[in-house]
């Protein structure tokens, strides 16, 4: 139901972009049902691929379709998923942010460093873990603000600005702790990434809520709609009185805060903040891959949260199946990359013209 993408069908199909809600008064019910079907079909375009992967996984290993394995996947992809939400928002306004992967590492590092005593390689400030969470979000917001102001107000190239920022932030991440790994995180700090509701990881629930809220926000909030307008045609948005610069900077800030939150989940999951987290692991490739497989356009203006979520789940399945299949470590990266390229191709076929790049 969180339909935002424009339909690419022929003229005459009734109100697909508006999903269920934009309908002519006359045949409201019929149109509502039809509009929903078309909208839904487009958004769950990756569903057959996900089902196929479930089948493949079940064949590869009996352990795949178990609650504990699926819960594990859920926990693993949550952190990535939250970053993908942030990157998708930034892509939708026609921007790009490579530095989300560094924010993903730096924000929890700064927070943990301020929380932990000197003996654990912390700063010794020993602030409360709850204050630490605020610090984490503040670091995200600050990075996003700097990026946004440089790109939007300074009119610098977003690719280079965020590439430079990536390196700077990754350097800070190692610099403040002299390349040490921070363990012994307080419980409140690690809770989001480590805890379970029964068999369901808390991080998964939180990530799902974030996807849903952002999806609804994009679908129904005036600022969400403005994001589509700004990404689709910034000049037209400006002419319609939308504060284009403010929206863009705001989205950079929100995206970086989401990356910081994702970093918190990751730190909780592995019970540590390492110098490798984020930039060292190179997660930005997975972030972009998930967003683009999910139908978020790199040109801006198009994309939705159901697609982005499908992209994240798809990557999670692929990773897990490769692990269970005992693929040799020497080959796993090549196969991982190849599968992502294949998935991108498949998403292009299934998604139709709207996922095509310009000729």
């Amino acid at each position, binding site marked *: 139901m969180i339909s935002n993408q424009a339909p690419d069908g022929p003229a005459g199909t009734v*109100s697909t*972009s508006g999903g269920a*809600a934009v*309908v002519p008064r006359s045949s409201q019910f019929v149109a509502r049902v039809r509009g929903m079907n078309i909208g839904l079909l487009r958004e769950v375009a990756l569903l057959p691929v996900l089902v196929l992967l479930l089948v493949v996984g079940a064949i590869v290993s009996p352990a795949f379709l178990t609650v504990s394995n699926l819960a594990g996947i859920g926990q693993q992809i949550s952190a990535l998923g939250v970053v993908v939400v942030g990157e998708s928002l930034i892509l939708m306004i026609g921007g790009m942010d490579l530095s989300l992967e560094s924010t993903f590492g730096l924000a929890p590092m700064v927070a943990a460093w301020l929380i932990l005593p000197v003996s654990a390689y912390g700063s010794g400030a020993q602030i409360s873990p709850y204050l630490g969470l605020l610090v984490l979000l503040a670091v995200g917001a600050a990075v996003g603000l700097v990026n946004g102001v440089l790109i939007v107000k300074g009119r610098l190239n977003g690719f280079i600005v965020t590439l430079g920022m990536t390196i700077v932030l990754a350097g800070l991440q190692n610099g403040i702790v002299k390349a040490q790994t921070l363990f012994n995180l307080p419980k409140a700090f690690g809770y989001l990434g480590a805890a379970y509701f029964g068999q369901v990881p808390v991080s998964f629930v939180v990530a799902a809520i974030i996807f849903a809220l952002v999806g609804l926000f994009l679908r129904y909030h005036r600022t969400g709609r403005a994001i589509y*307008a700004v990404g689709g045609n910034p000049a037209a948005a400006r*002419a*319609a009185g939308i504060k284009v610069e403010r929206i863009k900077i705001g989205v950079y800030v929100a995206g970086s805060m989401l990356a910081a939150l994702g970093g918190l989940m990751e730190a909780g999951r592995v019970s540590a903040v390492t110098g490798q987290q984020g930039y060292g692991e190179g997660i930005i490739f997975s972030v972009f891959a998930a967003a683009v497989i999910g139908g978020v356009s790199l040109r801006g*203006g198009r994309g939705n949260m159901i697609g982005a979520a499908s992209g994240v789940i798809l990557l999670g399945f692929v990773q897990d199946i490769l692990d269970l299949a005992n693929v040799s470590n020497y080959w796993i990266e090549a196969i991982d990359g190849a599968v992502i390229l294949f998935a991108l191709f498949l998403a292009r076929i299934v998604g139709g013209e709207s996922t095509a790049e310009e000729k």
Partner: protein
Amino acid sequence: MTSPGPALVDMTGVNKRFGSTLALRGVDLSISAGQCLGLVGRNGAGKSTVVSILSGLESPDSGTVRLAGELAPRVGDVNRWRKWIATVFQHSMVVPELSVAENVFLGGTDRFVSWREMRARTREVMRDWGYDIRADALCRDLTVEQLQIVEIARALARGARCVLLDEPTAALEREAVRRLFGRVRQLTSSGVAVLYISHHLEEVFEICDDVSVLRDGEMVLTAAAAHLRKEDLIAAMVGSAPVAASVASGTTARSDANAAAEPVLIVEHLSASSARGRLDGVSLQVGRGEVVGVTGLLGAGVVTLGRAIAGAEGHDGGQIRLHGQAIPAGRRAAAQRAGIGYIPEDRRTEGFVAHLGVAENATMAITDRLADRLGLLRPGRRAAAAAPVTAALSLVSSGPGQPVEELSGGNQQKVTVARTLAHNPGLIVAITPTRGVDVASKALLLDTLAGVARHDGAGVLLCSDELSDLVICDRVIVLVRGEIFTEFTEPPFDRDQLIVATEGLTSTGQGTAEEAAK
């Protein structure tokens, strides 16, 4: 005719159709070596099509083009065309990051580049023609005038015997125009044929031996410039039927008493430098319920004035006040909040977001009013808000959710107008609001704008170079080179007088080549 020798370029009976419009109808045109032929005509008369055909970019549907007696090469055979004819287009075709020599030999046929030879031959051309530009200078460092010289040198280096100059003075200062004339005379005296296309009649009289006039795709007049008067040219350009005047008498005729009483918009000494044309101290007022037209040639500042008032671009000096409230420069959102509606010049770039729906685009300026306390927009509410405006404009779509990119040009323009009308602006700035729409939509859009002024009391500033748009105006201001040249206050407006004024000439019967408003 003064033309000596055989025709270097000869067009006979050329027809060209674009879709449903006949751009050229049986056009004959010939230029001889050493002749400078002026080609004039109003916007849309077919001048650009003639340029395209003579540059080898378009082929005629029927008729022939001969170069020095031989049939012209086929379209696309650029190198053979350029041996005969080279065109200096209105917009510079010079690559700014390359050197002068590279630009002069841009697209040359040699497989390998000999830098030494390229520079040497460039220097040779520059020296032969007395042009003072270094071969290894970077083109991005050159002035507009120098870039034009590079393009002329490019034509000469290839040995072209005919040069097409398309609106060559549009971006030039007065002094540079004088120097350009010197270069044109130099070209013709050494046997090069020149086709000089211009809006400025006084230039044509000064530089051309003969003048040809295009009107609605037909060549209506070709004569020696010395035997023509300015009035003859204008009569030929405009034709006999004063269409605008006859329509105008029906729709306008209202007292402008209330206009004087209550100004909605006051603009004082507005100055701006813009790629679209600069403004130099423009002051004007628009009253409540008044439709004020602004017109002028391309680059005269008409579009800049509209955009600056709407906050779509900044300005350097002066003040804009709406209902007494100062409007900050270049802040579209603030201008809109103050009550200035904006119908942009080009709907595709500023008019709508192509893949979003009709209702969403039409309500894009009023999301603040439609949203609830949490900022949420119900699509049903959006559709309901869009419905009355789109219905009033007879907008045809399959539903409020249909993406605007699927609509026809006329309906897309209606979406753009609906977006403006939806927020009930106190002042509407409409820039060429009927461009590229069909006749029926055009009448409806103009009626709608006039209606908003008459019935809702909004002020309308209609910036347009389409004289037929101005029928709904109570007054028309004519801009020439960024300044107010004159103002017509009595509708119906005389089409001929408007055209004369846009050319920067004062009223008819005063002899030729009168100086512009300086």
